């Protein structure tokens, strides 16, 4: 497909204004799409040329901010990271993320996601409060220790894993794969000592033990994370702690930063002569 071979794609977009409509409905728009046109670009075309009242979130347009997560042809995707031609269809259905309330049109209410995220205390917790308040040095961490949780630190909180999760669909109080994987991310961090504060949050009737291990979160995650793996590893931590088989994990040492640093790479020469 080239610029000359632009196709006309029918966007069936879910519209819903809670102040006016009793239920969501679909509205169709014809959008020209060429090679590489993303679903987000299609929606921006609609907003700029066909209906300026269409509501959707977007920010970075390159799969980093997680704002434009939506249900495209009945599967959750980032609209900026999904090209129209991937679907090999001249019709595209676009809806708001399921398992989350709708604010308007394609804008889901993400507060439940963020509240669950906050509840697992997603930050480093340590007992040496003095060092936390007035840091004098650095917490030591080897590359191996970093790799044990690094992939889970790439979460962009887009809500796609929660939208794909069958347990979140049936249990409205379920913590969800995003919060559970972030709980593991901080528990596995050797700089952290907050496990005992996080375990009671996830060890509930609507917490970690309600995960069905469907793996839909891992399959849908646009950043390639494996939240299902994090949940399983967190279950292992909980069980080994409960039955007393847990090895004591020493918190990261506080070490002074290196006094000598590598020489900086010299700034490259300007390719254009400065006048």
């Amino acid at each position, binding site marked *: 497909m080239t610029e000359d071979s632009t196709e006309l794609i029918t966007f069936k977009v879910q519209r819903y204004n809670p102040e006016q409509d009793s239920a969501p409905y679909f509205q169709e728009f014809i959008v020209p799409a060429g090679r590489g046109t993303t679903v987000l670009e299609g929606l921006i075309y609609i907003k700029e040329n066909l209906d300026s009242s269409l509501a959707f979130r977007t920010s970075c347009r390159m799969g980093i901010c997680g704002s434009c997560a939506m249900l495209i042809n009945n599967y959750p995707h980032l609209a900026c990271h999904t090209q129209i031609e991937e679907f090999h269809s001249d019709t595209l259905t676009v809806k708001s993320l399921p398992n989350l309330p709708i604010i308007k049109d394609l804008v889901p209410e993400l507060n439940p996601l963020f509240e669950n995220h906050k509840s697992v205390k997603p930050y480093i917790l340590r007992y040496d409060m003095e060092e936390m308040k007035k840091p004098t040095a650095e917490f030591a961490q080897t590359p191996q220790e970093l790799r044990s949780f690094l992939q889970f630190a790439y979460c962009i909180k887009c809500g796609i894993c929660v939208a794909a999760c069958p347990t979140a669909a049936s249990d*409205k109080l379920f913590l969800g794969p995003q919060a559970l994987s972030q709980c593991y991310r901080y528990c596995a961090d050797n700089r952290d000592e907050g496990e005992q504060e996080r375990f009671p949050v996830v060890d509930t009737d609507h*917490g970690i033990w309600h995960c069905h291990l469907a793996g839909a979160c891992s399959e849908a995650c646009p950043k390639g994370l494996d939240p299902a793996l994090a949940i399983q590893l967190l279950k292992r931590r909980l069980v080994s702690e409960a039955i007393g088989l847990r090895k004591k994990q020493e918190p990261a040492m506080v070490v002074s930063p290196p006094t000598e640093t590598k020489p900086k790479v010299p700034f490259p020469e300007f390719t254009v002569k400065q006048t």
Partner: protein
Amino acid sequence: MRNTYVWFLQLVTGVLIAVLLGIHVVIMHLDAILGFFGVDMAEVTSWESMIGRAIQGVWASLYIALLAVVLYHALNGLRGIILESTPSATTERIVTWVIIAFGIIAFIGGTYVPVALLAS
């Protein structure tokens, strides 16, 4: 850690069911295979044979243990399904206590005969 213990027991009872139910299935239904290994379990399903096993401590203990682990595994699974579809604190308490009461009644009913036979 209450839920962790509850679900760890769910895993343990799952393994125990595989072992205990395996013994039950082999004894009750695979007599031809047992016969091949020289074990004669003639008429295992007859009344006399069942009563004969029930008054032996080992068999009675095995079946009481099987009943206990099956009840725990099944009722805890049922509780999980119900709680997932009815998320409310009140429902949780009611469902939990109804399930516990049903489990205790079923266990007493199921163990009455072998315990009475052993006692006699």
